[in-house]
């Protein structure tokens, strides 16, 4: 097997990125608010496992996950949200995901699950500021014409407990989805010779 990405791989990358990005664009549209947005992590993680695992199985080459991350960052982060910070967060998580899968030579289920977990957490870039940059969010909210109570109300939802709940539920989703994905791979795609 050649290790360089060939034209055929670039087309595979484009197709799987299209499914991945379309799913997240639809989810973002449906869940577009900070509170519901927190649900995007577990829901996204639950849905995209089969796509991601088949993607790794079909490419098996260094760079594929990074490119998918780049495209997600460009389209979702930069061109849909218009937000550079979110784009950078997405790309950063994709690099971690690539590295994890690389450590398992793209064949180890364990490392691929770790890779998928990284890939499932990029959406923290969207609501992360509510935990990390509280003052900035507060000021932004108030100068946008909202009373201070509004801002404090939102911030009161962003506690360590909610953060923990989001992370825990996302990890559970990742595991369930990876399990389903692995079973589907064996049952369908490996048998049919496309994975």
């Amino acid at each position, binding site marked *: 097997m050649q290790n360089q990405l060939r*034209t*055929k791989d670039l087309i595979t990358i484009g197709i799987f990125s299209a499914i991945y990005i379309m799913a997240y664009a639809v989810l973002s549209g449906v869940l577009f608010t900070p509170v519901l947005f927190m649900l995007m992590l577990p829901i996204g993680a639950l849905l995209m496992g089969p796509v991601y695992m088949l993607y790794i199985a079909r490419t098996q080459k260094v760079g594929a996950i990074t490119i998918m991350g780049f495209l997600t960052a460009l389209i979702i982060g930069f061109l849909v949200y218009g937000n550079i910070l979110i784009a950078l967060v997405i790309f950063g998580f994709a690099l971690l995901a690539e590295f994890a899968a690389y450590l398992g030579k793209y064949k180890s289920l364990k490392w691929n699950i770790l890779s998928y977990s990284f890939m499932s957490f990029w959406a923290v870039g969207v609501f992360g500021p509510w935990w990390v940059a509280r003052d900035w969010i507060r000021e932004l909210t108030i100068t946008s014409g909202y009373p201070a109570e509004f801002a404090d109300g939102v911030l009161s939802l962003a506690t360590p407990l909610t953060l923990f709940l989001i992370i825990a539920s996302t990890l559970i989703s990742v595991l369930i989805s990876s399990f389903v994905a692995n079973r589907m791979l064996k*049952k*369908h795609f490996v*048998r*049919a*010779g496309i994975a």
Partner: protein
Amino acid sequence: MITLSDVSFSYGDDDKRVLDSVSLHIDQGECVLLCGKSGCGKSTVLNLINGIIPNHIEGTLTGTVTVNGVQPKDVRIQELSATVGSVFQNPKSQFFSLNSSDELLFACCNHRVPRQVMQERLAETTETFNIAHLLNRNIFGLSGGEKQKLACASVYMNRPDVYVFDEPSANLDASAIQELRQIILALKQAGNTIVIAEHRLHYLLGIYDSVIYMASGKIAGRYRQEDFVNIPEDERRQMGLRAIHKPTLREPKPQAIESEPAIIVETLTCRHGNKVAVQIENLKLPKHKVIAVVGKNGAGKSTFAAGFSGIHRATAKIADEKEMSRRERLKRTFLVMQDVNHQLFAESVLDELMLGHAFDDTERIQQAEATLEQLNLLQWRDEHPQCLSGGQKQRTAISTALFASKSYLIFDEPTSGVDLIHMMRVAELIQGIKNRVACVLVITHDIEFINYCCEYVVEMDAGRVMNAYQLDVDV
């Protein structure tokens, strides 16, 4: 221009040769038709000419292939594409762009043609193919015929000397096929070398100079055009070839006997937004008959099927013994889609039937196996449905419908891109099941197929039924 000498090929490590000592020579400017049953090796010959074999599809290749003095195995497919242009059968998967103009320029962009030359070629191609109205359009908005025209034009943009066509008419209706004929004729008259692999032969009459007939990986006959067109009907069928001359529909029955209707469509109105796409009134469909639904692309045949079956919401009054609601119609009809891949969900053929039933219900399993037996699928019961051949997939879908005791079966283009033998098998199959269901509707453009298997015709145009009549001679 093209020479194959003593070429054999087998896929992967397989021992079975898909091509077995094939030698042929095609002159500059010649137009050659490759024909033969499915799996006879004609597509393999095309793939050897455009370099897909052995550069993309791996296997064991012996003998030499030469195209314009070059051996395809020595160069990359992309380099060879300057000499050889390829047009494939499926419009859905051969476009790289969404915009038609980008698509035309695609090959030029890849070959690093300078901007100035691109503009000149675009202007010339637009003129030659008469496609000014197709520039700068969304490709998904084009009709099947327009897409295939665009595919040919986008290959022409790169100005190759050799054109290979792999079943270009498979997804086209009658008028689009005539347009395709004009394009191939124009390419030939411009002095290009053309190789076409096809099942549907009649539209190429008068274009090809010679015909190569293949069977099980070997060349089984070579014909000059004038000899090929004079092959007697019986012999042509023996060879497993579709009509060489354009077929005509059987005559309507002079005194049609009113047979008992299975179902009466009192009204059916389907809308796309505010536009009425289909409006049908008082259509009676006869019981236990195979009914062909014909009409041009865009006449509303598929919309009719979607409205009738309940897939799409429609204002409808449809009754057999009693009036059926949309939910009941969904329950009692089944649509075998043109792309049958979309309706296979399970991990084995048996499971496909058993979906929704307890998998340890031995009585149901026996019934399922009996259904599979009738459709000649029992030996594949444990195979993955997506790995089967096109015909087997189609039969699997039909078996799910029979197993679920559906009353109305609708087929959407069941014979697009199949050879004579497979077409006759589909015809026999449909004839075989028509008495098990109330009636069978077949949406089709295939006149040869209608002549083989349909007893009743519903003609549609612009969303309305123009005519409905019984055909002469029972099948």
